C-alpha cells in the first residue's frame, strides 16, 4: 500500500497531467516563497494558454516572469504588476489578459475556493473599477461587493519543510499566499526545501494539513532577493 506517502521523485511526476489552457494557482509574494523548480519545469513542458493566479508575476527573468517571456500565460489574476516591465508591457498592449484583484480579496478568493465557499462579500473595491459589474449589497448600512472564489486545476506551493504525508510548514514571510494556494488546487503540488518523516513536525505548528496536498517534491532554490535593503550595524 502507498498509504499517505505523497513524495514524487521527478518534476515530470510532480506536474503530470498539467496541460494547455489549465488554471494554476501559485503561492509566493514577489520572489519570496515561490516554487522555483516547478515554475522552471512548467517552462520546460511548454504548456501554453495558462491562466495563472498569483499575487505577482515574478520579475522579468525569474519566477513566473519566465512564463511571460515564453508567452505561456494567457491570463493573469494578480494584485500587483509593480516593476515587472514585461508584465506591464503585455498588459498595456492587450496581449495578456489581466484581472487585477486587490491583494486581500485575492487571498480570500483562494481560501474560499479551497473551503467550499463559492462567494463572499467585501467592502474592498466598492466604488472602484474592481467593483464594476459586481453585485453590490448593503449590510448594516455599508455597501459591499460580491466576489467569487477561485480554484485551479493545479496549485503550486513552496514549503520550507514538508513531511511525506504532505503536512507543510513555511519559513518566515515565505508563508504568504502558499497556504491558501495549497487548499485551492484540484491537484496540489508542494516543492519543499526539506522533506521530513511524519512526526517530525509538531502537529500544532503545521501550516498546511496534508489533506490538501497531492504530491511533494524535494526542490532546490536560488532564493533570489528582489530588494535587498540593509542597515549598518551601528543603527
Amino acid at each position, binding site marked *: 500500500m502507498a498509504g499517505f506517502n505523497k513524495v514524487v521523485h521527478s518534476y515530470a511526476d510532480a506536474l503530470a497531467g498539467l496541460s494547455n489552457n489549465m488554471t494554476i494557482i501559485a503561492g509566493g*509574494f*514577489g*520572489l*519570496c*516563497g515561490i516554487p522555483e523548480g516547478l515554475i522552471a519545469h512548467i517552462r520546460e513542458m511548454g504548456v501554453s494558454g495558462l491562466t495563472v493566479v498569483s*499575487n505577482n508575476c515574478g520579475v522579468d527573468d525569474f519566477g513566473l516572469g519566465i512564463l511571460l517571456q515564453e508567452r505561456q500565460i494567457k491570463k493573469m489574476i*494578480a*494584485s*500587483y*504588476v*509593480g516593476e515587472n516591465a514585461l508584465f*506591464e508591457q503585455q*498588459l*498595456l498592449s492587450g496581449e495578456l489578459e489581466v484581472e*487585477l484583484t*486587490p*491583494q*486581500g*480579496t485575492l*487571498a*480570500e478568493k*483562494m*481560501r474560499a475556493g479551497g473551503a467550499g465557499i463559492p462567494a463572499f462579500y*467585501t*467592502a*474592498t*473595491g*466598492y*466604488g*472602484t*473599477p*474592481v467593483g464594476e459589474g459586481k453585485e453590490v449589497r448593503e449590510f448594516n448600512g455599508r455597501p459591499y461587493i460580491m466576489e467569487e472564489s477561485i480554484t485551479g486545476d493545479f496549485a503550486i506551493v513552496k514549503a*520550507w519543510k514538508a513531511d511525506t504525508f504532505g503536512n507543510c510548514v*513555511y*519559513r*518566515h*514571510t*515565505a*508563508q*504568504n*499566499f*502558499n*497556504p*491558501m494556494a495549497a487548499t485551492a488546487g484540484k491537484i496540489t503540488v508542494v516543492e519543499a526545501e526539506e522533506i521530513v518523516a511524519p512526526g517530525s513536525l509538531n502537529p500544532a505548528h503545521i*501550516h498546511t494539513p496534508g489533506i490538501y496536498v497531492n504530491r511533494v517534491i524535494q526542490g532546490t532554490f536560488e*532564493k*533570489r*532577493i*528582489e*530588494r*535587498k*535593503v*540593509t*542597515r*549598518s*550595524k551601528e*543603527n
Partner: protein
Amino acid sequence: MALSREQIAMRVAQEFKDGDYVNLGIGIPTLAANYVPKDIAVMLQSENGLLGMGPYPTEAELDADMINAGKETVTSITGACIFNSAESFAMIRGGHVDITVLGAFEVDVSGNIASWMIPGKLVKGMGGAMDLVAGAQNIIVTMTHANKHGESKLLDACTLPLTGVNCITRIITDLAVLKVANGAFHLLERAPGVSVEEIQQKTAGKLIVEGDVPEMQFKN
C-alpha cells in the same frame, strides 16, 4: 518652506498613539517608522503577513524569507508574529489595524483616493491598498500637495481610477495637514513658513480655513 520627505514622515509619526497597530505604505509612509515619538510604542503590520516589523537587517541578518510588503528585506521585533496573507487581510479588512498611511496620486473632498493606475500610461496594480483603505479605522494620505507641473492633487473629484471611496480622513502634504469632512478639505496646520494663501492656491478642491491656522510643531 515645503517639507522634505523626512519632515512629512516626522509629522505623520505624530499622529500615532501609544499601542497603535499601524500599516505603512511604500515611500514616505515607510519613513514614518523612523520618527515614532520616544514615549509611545506602535507595532507595524506588513500586509504580506508580519505583525511586529523591525528595522532593515544588517548584512549578517539578511534573509530572503524575511521581507515586507514592499518586498524589501526586513527583520521582526521581539513579540512579532508571522502568518499567511489571508489572515493578514482578515486583520486589515476586519478593522483591527488602527492606522494606515499611504501615498496617492489624487484625493478629493469626498474622501476618495486614487493611487494605483494612470490609464494607458502606468499600471502598478492596487496590491493591498484597496483592502487597507476599506478596512483601517483611520487612513492618512501622504503626498506632495501638487504634482511636478504645479497641479493640485487635492481635488473636488478624483479624475483617476479610484482605490477607495469615502475613506480618507486625514492628509499630510509637504505644505499642510488637512482633515476631510462634510465634502471639503479643512486646513488644520501649515508647514513652517508656508502661507495660507499658498495652500489655498494649490488646493483645487473646496478648502475651508477657519481662524488662525497654526504652523506644524515637530516635537520629536
